[in-house]
């Protein structure tokens, strides 16, 4: 089975507010899927559900062909799925190196030395080698977000989720983070990214899903979605983006 992730009829509500309804998504191995849509359309919630950070109300999730909806060991599932958040969420009381080595040591059982070697190689690869002993507060937003990506990669996940990872960044810092994601895509990493960076999504994604009010209203190759969207809501959304000069 070459599907890295299958989501079937996933529904999720917060109280009486239905955030996601009957979501079906399939992500093939090495595929990059972009989730676009207005704020509140359910992009972040979908990613958090896939990572099992939010309990589902209905639906099933399969990772690499194996059902993970209600796993016996939720931690074991999360080790195979990396997620990067909008607000970085680095651990401020730890050095960069410790941020990256903590989970491989504690959750994978690597020795500090093995975890350190793995971390150093990754930090090196993404131009952060000289930051390894710094604390997160000393880094720029772009550097912090790159460290957060490295921290997730250190677990060698089968799937990476990116939750609007550039939304909190100053415009001049966005490029360095997107560059990292681009490199991961080129390396064949399976990824789902929720993003407001339309030109980036268009550029990097194999498939684009447009979420509207908790549904996947339309999906397809980026060329189709961005140039000839079928649905009126998609057209309206893209029109607003163009007016805001983000495309």
């Amino acid at each position, binding site marked *: 089975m070459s599907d890295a992730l299958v989501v079937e009829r996933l529904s999720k509500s917060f109280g009486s507010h239905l955030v996601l309804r009957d979501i079906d998504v399939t992500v093939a191995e090495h595929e990059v899927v972009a989730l676009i849509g207005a704020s509140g359309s359910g992009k972040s919630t979908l990613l958090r559900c896939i990572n099992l950070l939010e309990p589902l109300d209905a639906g099933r999730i399969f990772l690499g062909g194996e059902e993970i909806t209600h796993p016996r060991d939720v931690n074991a599932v*999360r080790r195979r799925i990396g997620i990067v*958040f909008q607000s970085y*969420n680095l651990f401020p*009381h730890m050095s960069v190196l410790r941020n990256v080595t903590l989970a491989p040591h504690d959750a994978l059982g690597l020795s500090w030395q093995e975890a350190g070697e793995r971390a150093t190689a990754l930090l090196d690869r993404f131009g952060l080698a000289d930051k390894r002993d710094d604390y997160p507060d000393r880094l720029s937003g772009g550097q912090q977000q790159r460290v957060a990506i490295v921290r997730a990669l250190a677990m060698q996940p089968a799937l990476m989720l990116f939750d609007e990872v550039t939304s909190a960044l100053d415009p001049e810092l966005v490029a360095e983070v997107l560059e990292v994601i681009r490199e991961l895509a080129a390396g064949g990493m399976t990824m789902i990214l929720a993003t407001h960076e339309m030109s980036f999504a268009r550029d990097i994604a194999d498939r684009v899903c447009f979420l509207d009010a908790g549904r996947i209203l339309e999906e397809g190759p980026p060329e189709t979605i961005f140039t000839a969207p079928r649905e009126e809501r998609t057209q309206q959304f893209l029109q607003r983006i163009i007016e805001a000069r983000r495309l």
Partner: protein
Amino acid sequence: MRSGGDGRRSVAIALASTVVFFAIVVFAVTHAPGWPQVRTQFFNWEEFKSTFPEIARAFVLNIKIFCIAEVFILVFALVLAVLRSLPGPVFFPLRALAIVYADLFRGIPTILVIALLGFGAPALGLSYIPKSVIFWGIVSLVLIYSAYVSEVYRAGIDSIHPSQEAAARSLGLSRAQTLRRVILPQAVRRVIPPLLNDFIGLQKDTALVGTLGAVEAFQQSQIDTNATFNFTAYLCAAALFVAITIPLARFTDYLIARDRRRRQGSFAR
């Protein structure tokens, strides 16, 4: 932050206002009608010199009580705080227990707990529990201060943003690992100043163990006072307590500043 000229000027103002303030206080006190008598009763240098060594020796007991109680308080209070932060209906009994405990021991006056345990427990005559009043004094202080300190810890735990837990759990760390590695280290750093506040309270309340008959600094000064009808001995004891708490406060300030410097480097945000 403050540039040279400005800094010198504010230091000068602070100094001048301090001198004026104390001059007024000293004048008011020394010109009070009862001052000559108060001076011989409370500020008697000869008395100070003769009672100080004895009281200082007794004060060692206060320090011992403080240090032993403190270790147990730090551990026990942390356990209580963690119990109270456990989520889900399964842990309700433990949470409820921790809440009842905190309510109870913050509600009863310290001196009552010390009297109840200090006089009551040895009176049971059980051979397998200690009879030492110092032991029961320490137990009382641990019970009471753990209730306060657990609330301080809990405030610290609650102050850590849920996104930190989400980040740790998303990496596959267990709930216990998340607590130990991510939540508690940050929570404890944040509550060091209020923790110190409670330590100073504890340091002072060691004097209450004296009410059980243990000869610590306060009890010793009372013995001296009763012998001579001169209250300077109290001043000795007070000076000893202050001599411990002030360095403790400065040391905590230093720890906080060092932690901030290390995390934020040269540019403070």
